[in-house]
């Protein structure tokens, strides 16, 4: 059960909302309270990084954790968002479609649940752009 930890970040999981440091312009997703470059000189502002990006690298996961057993195999990818930062997420598409450089767009999906009576963890995944 990770209720408060999940709830605290709902806004940033349900949509691609991160932060930008207004002092140096660096963009961060997931959001940070503190810019690692500017440290105490940071001035963080929340920003929505848009809905599209490009696959930088990917893998098809066969040995899955317990909560993802039904989804096996699924695709995990590093996606460079058009908005700037690189995000780790799942891509929902056929194994034959995924490739480095593929254009993707965001989709609101269910990640996993806390068993049959626990809460449902939603978040942002990606699907092919076309």
């Amino acid at each position, binding site marked *: 059960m990770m209720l408060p930890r999940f709830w605290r970040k709902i806004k940033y999981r349900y949509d691609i909302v991160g932060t930008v440091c207004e002092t140096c312009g660096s963009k961060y997703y997931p959001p940070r309270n503190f810019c690692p470059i500017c440290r105490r000189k940071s001035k963080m502002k929340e920003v929505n990084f848009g809905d599209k990006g490009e696959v930088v690298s*990917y893998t098809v996961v066969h040995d899955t954790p317990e909560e993802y057993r039904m989804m096996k195999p699924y695709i995990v990818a590093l996606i460079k968002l058009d908005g700037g930062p690189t995000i780790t997420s799942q891509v929902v598409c056929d194994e034959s479609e995924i490739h480095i450089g593929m254009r993707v767009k965001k989709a609101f999906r269910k990640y996993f649940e806390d068993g049959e009576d626990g809460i449902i963890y939603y978040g942002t995944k990606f699907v092919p752009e076309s």
Partner: protein
Amino acid sequence: MIAVEKVAIIGVGQSEFGELWDKGFREIVLKAGIEAIEDAGLEGKEIEAMYIGNMSGGRYLAQEHISALIADYSGLAELGTPSTRIEGADASGGLALRQAYLAVASGIHDIVIAAGAEKVTDVASEMTTDIMASSADREWEGFVGATIPALFALMAKLHFERYGTTSEDLAMVSVKNHKNGVLNPKAQFRREIRVEDVLNSPLVAEPLHLLDCAPLSDGASAVILANEKIAREYTDNPVFIRACTQASDYLAVQNRRDITTMESVRKASSLAYRMAKISPEDVDVVEIHDSFTIAEIMAYEDLGFVEKGKGAELIREGITELTGPLPVNPSGGLKACGHAIGATGIRQAVEITLQLRGMAGKRQVDCETGLSLNIGGTGATAVVTVYGVR
């Protein structure tokens, strides 16, 4: 960064590594510790401080305060000896080694012990994997199903794409380490495998197969460190730690500057070479953290043995074989020895020490300078240690 004292390893010990059903955590630690003390010729009470590398006593054993547990069980709590547990995922052992090194190098302590231990089989295997998974970014990598193998697979995929490294190259690393493991009586796996065995083993996270991944194992290791003056009272062949450096990097792989490079390894190793006043060519034997075969290939590059992207050449040309010019993982590495998480960093120190003493039996290589690389998780922590006969 000047050390006040020169630091030497005067004793080494190691339990078996593997699925040790009939041995508990306390026993394996004791086994490693006693062996190291006897190897050093100490009585035991000479040890002034204990540094323990252990990733997750809390989740594997529901036991925190591991430092106290080990001090107690080893008899040193009776003497009030200070004991500290250090955690850095599977670099915990390397971190413990470094803390022990700093204690002696600073002149504060004369003789200390650095140990590493982990007992992973007392929980169900899904739990074992999940606990190891907490070495990555739980909130933003673990949450989306990016397991540790998946994160290394992302690095491998890009390494393949950019530099032409292949699955066969990765398989050859596993084959080499298994071959070396046959010669190591304390290795978990002592049988040779072929490239086809690796490629035919089930996929874990493409392109990594089961045999590209080191198994998580039970095990404990210990080394005793002393300053030079004390060391020479106990042994005729002290092995000196010429440098022991550490560096960090962003936790989540997505935040690394270039995911095919481990910045932490580059930073720690360049500093280590500077402190030891050597360059990569001077290294004769290496223990590399091959939690995944791709990690070994990337380490060849990040440790400066070859330029970025050319790591696969070393394995293809047999350079890192036991009989090659730069033997890597003569012990069998994590793949064949087993990866007892917190114990690994110390086990690597044990191996290099045996090699430099000329006591490595059938897997002995010709060496005067050695290096060990212990990595935490997907590279957010790296510890590099340079060892020499003088």
